[in-house]
């Protein structure tokens, strides 16, 4: 099957100016500013199949929002090729955006002083939707998101969660094939998050492709089947969630309670994360070094196990390791005009590939 999204060697750089923080720096900047070339996205490549739900992650300033803006036709790239549903977003913007939806958590499409329903009708006219199609979709979305009593109130009187649900309706009224989500659950409470996640899952089941950018790893763990991690403008990981969890090695979190003292040494590959009491501890076990049954045997030889719980390492740990690895590299996003650009391994972002060679497996 042909991918619905194909991105090849995508690059975006732009110029900005460096300025100090003092009053003198501000005054100096009126006459002379130091130019900085920002390389926001560096030759990234990936593809997405129809119906996939992809988590597009990265620390702040990694280049994920810039990539998303290029993919939605908002920005022109400096170089590279993008084909989405047969369109080049920035060249065929009008017919292309009629096929996609976008929710930017920090940029509202609603109108602050009037009810969301009025904004929905405005979108109906902009997208040229038929009344029957519009009504059908609106009723379905309103019911799914449980906002029937909300859409007639002025937007400014709505809670953040209610507004975000209405943003989703705004983005989906024209039944897009692909939806780009940029931090859609930012600032939401647990219940609102859950409702929105359910909604995304439901739409994904119906065949809608989602690209999800978020800092909320709960969204990723619950929704995404595949994760692309970008840092300093380069893809450093592209694989499924399980591979991301394996990224730190085959590690498990174990909470061990013994009738006596927990031994000080529990063998190779076992690290004590926290000693809760003399007979209770939180451990991290690398099962590639010490398999679980060997660990249990060792504990039994040293005493009596009263209780034991075994969990996967939280996804946060893998993400943190990926981000921090890249942060140790020289900051290569900015490029002073008078400096030579330093670039780390550019082989990142292999289609359907695994982690970046320098960050894969145990090297992290």
């Amino acid at each position, binding site marked *: 099957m042909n991918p619905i999204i194909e991105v090849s060697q995508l690059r975006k750089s732009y110029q900005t100016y460096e300025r100090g923080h003092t009053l003198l720096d501000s005054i100096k900047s009126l006459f002379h500013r130091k130019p900085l070339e920002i390389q926001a996205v560096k030759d990234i490549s990936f593809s997405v199949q129809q119906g996939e739900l992809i988590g597009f992650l990265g620390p702040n300033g990694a280049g994920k929002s810039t990539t998303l803006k290029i993919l939605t*036709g908002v920005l*022109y790239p400096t170089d590279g090729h993008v084909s989405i549903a047969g369109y080049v977003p920035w060249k065929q913007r*009008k017919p292309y955006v009629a096929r996609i939806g976008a929710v930017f958590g*920090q*940029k509202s499409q609603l109108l602050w*002083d009037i009810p969301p329903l009025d904004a929905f009708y405005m979108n109906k*006219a902009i997208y040229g939707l038929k009344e029957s199609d519009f009504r059908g979709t609106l009723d379905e979305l309103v019911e799914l998101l449980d906002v029937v009593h909300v859409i007639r109130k002025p937007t400014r009187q709505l809670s953040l969660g209610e507004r975000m649900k209405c943003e989703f309706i705004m983005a989906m009224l024209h039944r897009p094939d692909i939806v780009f989500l940029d931090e859609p659950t930012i600032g939401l409470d647990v219940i609102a998050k859950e409702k929105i996640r359910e909604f995304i899952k439901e739409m994904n089941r119906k065949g809608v492709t989602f690209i999800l950018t978020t800092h909320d790893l709960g969204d990723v763990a619950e929704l995404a089947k595949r994760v692309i991690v970008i840092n300093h403008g380069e893809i450093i990981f592209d694989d499924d969630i399980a591979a991301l969890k394996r990224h730190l090695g085959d590690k498990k979190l174990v909470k061990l309670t013994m009738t006596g003292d927990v031994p000080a040494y529990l063998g190779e590959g076992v690290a004590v994360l926290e000693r809760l009491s003399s007979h209770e501890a939180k451990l991290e076990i690398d099962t590639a070094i010490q398999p679980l049954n060997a660990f249990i045997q060792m504990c039994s030889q040293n005493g009596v196990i009263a209780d034991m719980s075994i969990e996967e390492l939280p996804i946060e740990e893998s993400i943190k390791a990926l981000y921090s690895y890249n942060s140790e590299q020289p900051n290569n996003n900015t490029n002073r005009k008078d400096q030579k650009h330093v670039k780390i391994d550019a082989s990142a972002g292999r289609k359907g590939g695994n982690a970046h060679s320098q960050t894969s497996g145990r090297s992290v």
Partner: protein
Amino acid sequence: MTGSVQAFLAVMKTVVASRLAYRGDVFFSLFVTLLGEAILPMITLLIYKSGASFPGWSLEEAMLVQAVFMLAKGIAYPFFYGMVYNTLDRVREGSFDVLLLKPRSALFMTLVTGFSIDGLGRLVGGAALFIFALSGLPMPSAAEWLGFLLLMCLSACVLFASALFMSGMLFRWVGSSRVYEMNDAATSFGRYPLSIYSKPLQFVLSSVVPVAMISYFPAATLLGRSTPGLYGAAAASVIFLAAGLLFWHYMLRTYTSAGG
């Protein structure tokens, strides 16, 4: 085409509804605009009452030029100039992205979401002054009315082009809130009869930056006065609009959005 008109009306309706959420501010704004625009005709009246005048122009004729200027700005402010503030705010905040996500031309979305009812005060004031000035003059012929209407279309083209230049600049020079003042200073030459300026300046105002097309040529045509340089000014107006459109679309490509 029908779809575009429907979209235009639908967006305009929501923009007006949104603005009318603050009725007090709207009325106050309309009143202040009207008051501000009445100052220049009052000064003109005082000049003529004191015995001075624009050479070759009666009070009613000079008032008519200023009334046509107000009418033209009364069309430009609600329909065109709102896009300038719209661009200023949206580019600075990065919310211009939202307009680019709609399946309509970026210019259409910028223009229509920038519609401003506050500017209608100028239109009302212009219409009142126009009727007042015309009441003291012989009734123009049908041909003069037709010529006037055609030239008002070109006047709208010049003002639309100036809005395009202002809005386009804001994609590159983000947050330059003084573009209106620059534009007002440049277009204020159009408030007076062209004949009061020196010959070289007359040429610039009619054939280079056709500010004279905003009010002088339409008013002079309505008055049945001779209008040397009219064809050059008409051509310059069309070229000015084309240049404005090209400039705006070129500058749109430089839009960098704001940090995500």
